[in-house]
């Protein structure tokens, strides 16, 4: 009887994950379409669906009877912000799964290697230079450039320090991050506007932000998913992974580049939004599965759902005054302490 239980449970856990994924996808659709109608200008659910369908299909007839202003609010202001939030949430959670497995550390996150601090430094620099010299340096592009520079610096330091192993990468990340943090503090002193950007916000995002973040997240997720069986084995450590037929150097480098690109684009669009990349994979791993083949897409969906939800809370309750990064960290921090303490009780001491 026990035999049947373990095999049955194995098969059932796959089914459970699939159903949970479907439920999450449906919940995201409902969350987006429902909350886009909420705000200072309230719209009915059918009107929201009509606006979205009319704009996507190009069939303007369905928009008949809906005010121009309402269409503009939904299509030009709220929807890009909400969709951008969904992609950023999916991206940060995907990067979280990647970094945790590659660094063999369930407490790692997309910011562990200092990628976000590099991006924040780049963005701060662009904001400061724009203010000082009246130029129009693109904030996302500069942020992206500096985050990639951070990745190059971190991997170079790690290689010089003995190789691309997780402990070297984490130490190199801390060093580079500390240097950029000092630079950010100096620029904060010169320009107060930087503070708000760094706190992480989805306010005033446009379709061009979606166009920047969506392809990177989708392609990153697809490539990550293609190699997830290798990522599972990588989570066991280098020598076990190699003994199971994985080219560890190539796989580690590919995932580092993927995770960094996803993080960089997310940070470059909306600043530093903490805890999504840490909490989402961790929570799903301990409640559903550690198998990255399922954990990866589920984390992307759950990350999208969570950030969308959190942004709607800040948008509707505080009228967008509280940056969503502050809320995710304020709520995510204590929640993380709770799951960490609970998890520790279930991990066997040696």
């Amino acid at each position, binding site marked *: 009887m*026990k*035999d049947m*239980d*373990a*095999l049955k*449970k*194995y098969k059932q856990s796959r089914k459970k994950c699939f159903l949970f994924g479907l439920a999450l996808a449906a919940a995201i659709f409902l969350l987006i379409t429902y909350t886009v109608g909420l705000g200072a200008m309230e719209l009915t659910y059918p009107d929201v669906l009509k606006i979205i369908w009319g704009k996507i299909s190009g069939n303007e007839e369905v928009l008949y009877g809906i005010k121009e202003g309402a269409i503009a609010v939904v299509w030009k202001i709220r929807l890009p912000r909400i969709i951008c939030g969904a992609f950023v949430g999916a991206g940060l959670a995907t990067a979280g799964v990647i970094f945790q*497995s590659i660094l*063999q*550390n*369930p407490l790692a996150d997309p910011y562990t290697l200092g990628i976000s601090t590099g991006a924040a430094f780049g963005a701060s620099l662009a904001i400061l230079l724009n203010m000082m010299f009246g130029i129009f340096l693109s904030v996302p592009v500069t942020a992206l450039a500096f985050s990639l520079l951070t990745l190059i610096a971190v991997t170079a330091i790690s290689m010089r320090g003995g190789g691309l192993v997780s402990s070297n990468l984490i130490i190199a990340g801390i060093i580079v991050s500390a240097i950029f943090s000092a630079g950010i503090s100096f620029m904060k002193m010169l320009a107060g506007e930087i503070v708000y950007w760094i706190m992480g916000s989805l306010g005033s995002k446009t379709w061009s932000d979606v166009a920047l973040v969506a392809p990177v997240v989708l392609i990153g997720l697809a490539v990550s998913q*293609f*190699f997830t*069986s290798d990522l*599972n*084995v990588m*989570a*066991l*450590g280098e*020598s*076990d992974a*190699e*003994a*199971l*037929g*994985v*080219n560890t150097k190539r796989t580690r480098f590919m995932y580092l580049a993927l995770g960094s690109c996803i993080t960089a684009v997310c940070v470059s669009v909306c600043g530093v939004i903490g805890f999504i990349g840490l909490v989402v994979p961790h929570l799903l*791993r*301990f409640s559903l599965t*550690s*198998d990255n083949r399922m954990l990866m897409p589920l984390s992307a969906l759950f990350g999208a759902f969570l950030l969308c939800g959190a942004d709607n809370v800040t948008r509707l309750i505080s009228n967008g005054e509280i940056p969503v990064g502050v809320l995710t960290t304020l709520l995510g921090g204590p929640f993380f302490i709770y799951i960490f303490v609970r998890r520790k009780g*279930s*991990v*066997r001491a*040696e």
Partner: protein
Amino acid sequence: MLNSPLLEAKNVSFSYGKDKVLSDVSLVVNRGEYLSIVGMNGSGKTTLLSLLSGHLRPDKGAVFLNGRNLNSISVRERARQIALVSQSRQMNFPFTCLELVLMGLHPHSERFETVSDEQLEKAREIMESTDVWRFADKPITEISGGERQRVVLSRALMQNPSLLLLDEAVSELDIAAKISMMKLLLQQVRKTGMSVVSIHHDLTTVFRFSDRVAALKLGSLAENGTPEKLMTKEFFKDVFSVDAEILSNKGFIVCDNI
């Protein structure tokens, strides 16, 4: 085919920076034999095993698997033939024991290939034989060190290798579990023709279960032969610097002279 060479290390040397760990070691592993590697701490046993697995490349000399230089074989192809159970068994992620054992299929599986019912049945058989099936659905982070060793050994058997390399893989097992695991491994060796190269510190286990013993001393191969012939008073004195009393065909007693 039994007793023909499967793996051959020819005059291999290896250094970590300026620290020479192995020098000019030659060793043959035959098909269907259980070869134990013994030696004092720091004698180069784990490094030799890493060279035999292909994880490390020798500075000098070469390792051949079925006559092919190990360096010319891809990591994946190597993993289809050689399984390694290494010393570090720290698990940070709560994979279930069954999931972990099924990872042994990785070098044989295509991407997105799902696990078949036959493979699940094979995993069950292996896990029953290693006595870990009763916690198949438990997270690997929630079982003891000895139980984890048996799960990792099950994964290595799932890999269906022609050569199994073990680095102190039974060191954390209690005496009953150790004997039953060694019997199981020996049964696999006899039944399937699989070869095992295993590092042991427990010389009683070495004496009782090995077909052959290779002893390392300061990075060089000191002795090589059957346990009965090799494990003499001189052997203990030379390799481990201890006095031992040999009980004819039954084993030995190490005297407390340190």
